[in-house]
């Protein structure tokens, strides 16, 4: 799946928007991965995530608690989280490297920043999935400022109509950016929607 790859926005807008995916590989290292996932979860929560969840049970923005998420983690499950600042990501990766549990770790975000962080932490990136943008009948697309928000839900549960409505309500003073971002973020079922970035984008109008 490429659901964390196609987030849109300028370099500045993406500066503090990262997604971390922790994925046991089926028939390779999924056996016994449940206990490891619980340890990864502890690291993520302690170092600070903006959103986290799993696709089968929802995210902390849609009512899932960390305790419940922990109880659902078993062999072969996955963890997905959104991180809204570079320093938190760096602390998380440092601890993951130190604990060396051996599950595959993928980070989506600005390439230059991830490479720089990897160098500092002594991590050697292995492979990459790189977006070439959107091709085809692009006249169907909503404007970019809308897509900056909708593409943060990689499964596209967030409609452009809802984002337009939220922008208008914020502009009219009928809703705060925080209320709007929480309302929108609730629709992302896997936990990679960055509500903090959404709030900042809504504040810009």
């Amino acid at each position: 799946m490429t659901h964390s790859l196609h987030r849109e926005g300028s370099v500045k807008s993406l500066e503090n928007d990262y997604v971390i995916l922790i994925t046991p590989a089926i028939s390779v290292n999924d056996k016994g991965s449940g206990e490891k996932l619980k340890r990864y979860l502890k690291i993520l929560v302690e170092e600070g995530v903006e959103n986290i969840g799993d696709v089968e049970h929802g995210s902390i923005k849609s009512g899932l608690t960390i305790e419940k998420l922990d109880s659902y983690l078993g062999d072969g499950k996955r963890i997905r989280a959104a991180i809204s600042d570079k320093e938190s990501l760096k602390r998380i990766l440092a601890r993951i490297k130190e604990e060396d549990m051996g599950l595959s770790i993928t980070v989506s975000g600005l390439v230059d920043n991830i490479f720089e962080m990897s160098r500092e932490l002594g991590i050697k990136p292995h492979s990459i999935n790189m977006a070439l943008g959107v091709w085809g009948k692009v006249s169907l697309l909503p404007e970019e400022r809308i897509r900056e928000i909708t593409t943060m839900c990689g499964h596209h549960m967030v409609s452009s109509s809802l984002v337009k409505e939220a922008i208008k309500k914020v502009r009219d003073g009928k809703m705060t950016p925080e209320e709007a971002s929480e309302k929108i973020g609730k629709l992302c079922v896997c936990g990679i929607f960055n509500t903090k970035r959404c709030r900042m984008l809504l504040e810009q109008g």
Partner: protein
Amino acid sequence: MVIINDSCIGCRQCLAYCPVGAISFSAEEGRSKLDLDECVECGTCYRSEVCPVDAIEYPDLDYPRTLRRHFSDPTSRHELTRMPGRGTEEVKTNDVTNRFKVGEVGVCIEMGRPGIGTSIMDVETVTKALSKYGVTYEKKNPLVALFSNAEKGEFKDEVKGERVLSIIIEFVVPVDRVTEVLKAIKKVSCEIETVFSISLAGMIDDDGSIPVMEIAEKLGLEHKPNAKINLGLGRFLEA
């Protein structure tokens, strides 16, 4: 999805939630109406709990309409992969699966993304164009279950009338063939009634250089500043 006519009070609150704009308001009937041809069964309207009178239902579906749900609702489980979601592990576990090897490029064409949706007919337009290049589709991708003839890029007749939120065409090509394949994809992108998000996957060299980025730049293709990077921290389970 179903909107129960007798229950709907016409408050219109659900309209904005549909990612593909399949819900409209009928002034004549004073209620919300769902266009079943456009609805991709993603379940967003239902899960949002926006309806104040619970008029939105999440019904059991029959094949082939079930495909809409499997390719659109991330909480549903694909019959082929037994996994939620529309894709595979692709680059996420490449450090232990070695799926994309040195000298190979993975291509992911996510039809209908971002947020537009796609007909299966449009997907077939692309797979037929790719058939000239002998691409081998990722066998764990749920797309392969739709083929009647994968070599020709043809789908089963019964699935051709369906629409989904997105579907990923996923395959690997040798580096020396990627240019002609990308040119073919660019050409066919002008023949479809939707959009797709496209990406290239591959290994990162020991010195940190990124061959797929160099390929894109050589072809004059724009690539985004953000990407999905496997950090190489995975390993095989010790015996």
